[in-house]
């Protein structure tokens, strides 16, 4: 695992998410995509560390949602996906898209529920629609970002292996 390269990729995705994509109404969540990527292609302990780190980055760029909910939800679902991948291989693009969509939905809902319960953040009427749309966009875009991300990280994505 090349942690420096991972940190650089995470930083670029975080800046893109907060800069270019922030002004768009409907957009993919780049950090969610890299979360699923790391859960699928890294070994379990690396996946756990990277899931929580990506969650922390999502919290940093997640203002006005307070810090904490992203780290917990990304950490939980990233870890779950990493363990699931030991049993069920997710290597075809449709399955990867489905994994991104499902993890996006679950982590999105958990993030907003945690923010609502702990920080008394209001749940607006269209929040679940927004989570659904973001997960859909991420699911469509995500699998196409996996090969360049794998190249950057030096991960071989063609080789079939379960960890």
């Amino acid at each position, binding site marked *: 695992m090349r942690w420096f390269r991972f940190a650089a990729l995470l930083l670029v995705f975080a*800046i893109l998410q907060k*800069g270019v994509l922030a002004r768009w109404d409907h957009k993919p969540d780049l950090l969610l995509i890299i979360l699923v990527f790391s859960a699928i292609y890294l070994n379990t302990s690396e996946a756990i560390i990277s899931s929580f780190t990506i969650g922390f980055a999502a*919290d940093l760029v997640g203002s006005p949602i307070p810090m904490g909910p992203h780290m917990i939800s990304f*950490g939980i679902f990233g870890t779950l996906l990493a363990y699931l991948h030991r049993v069920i291989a997710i290597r075809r693009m449709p399955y990867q898209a489905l994994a991104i969509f499902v993890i996006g939905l679950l982590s999105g809902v958990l993030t907003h529920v945690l923010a609502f319960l702990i920080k008394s*953040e209001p749940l*607006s009427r269209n929040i679940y629609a927004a989570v659904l749309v973001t997960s859909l966009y991420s699911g469509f875009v995500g699998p196409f970002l996996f090969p360049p991300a794998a190249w950057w990280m030096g991960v071989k994505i063609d080789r079939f292996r379960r960890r």
Partner: protein
Amino acid sequence: MLFTWFMLTGLILLFAPQELTGKFQLAFVHIFRWPLSMGGSVALTARTQQLAGGASQPGERQYRNYIANLQQTLDEQRRKFEKLYGLDNTFVWEGADFALADVITATTDGSRNELTIACRKTDGLTKGQYVLGDESVIGIVSEVFPQIAKADVKLVTDSTSWIPVEVAGLKNILKGNGDYTARIEWLKNAVKVGEDVFALKKAGLLDAPIIVGTVSRCERNTQNASLWDVTVEPACDIQKLEDVAVIIIRPPK
């Protein structure tokens, strides 16, 4: 074990006071302000090209807002003269200062609409002050970080925002929808589409009413058919804003 330690860290962040953790978020924006604002400009260029067809000109909109505000200021001044001529009267906007600020990032996630701004001066900047964009009220300062000359602005379209407004002589509360529109509920009378909505004057924050937006839809309330719900579109394209002004009202000497 690894999982437990990270979960603990996450929980500490979650339960830590927001005033403290908010500084991490703003520090990130402060450190990476250059790539973030550059990314924002890219998004703005793309949006401008996309909207070029039917959208109204920003300059035209700005003049329209300016004229509407001027009319309200004049009315307010007249009222003051009539009411308090014999007393120690002050002029509308006397002592008001407009702190200019650049927009670093504009965030929308379906429910929350927020701007992070870089203020050129932070003297007198506090929470709750009104923020203008294209001569119209776009939001309220929600956090100020004077050490790094940054502030967060909760937009009027944010789902947690509410400000007192007046539309067609009816006073009410404007609440954000979270999707770059806002709403006014439980109005006694129907109002015309295109009617201007003004933020009401507030002592120490707003000297005269200022335009917030225009009515884009007026329909009967679903629970009480004798009342009306109004959808309001902001008077400026908030997503395309590059600079704003914070109204700082200084107490008269």
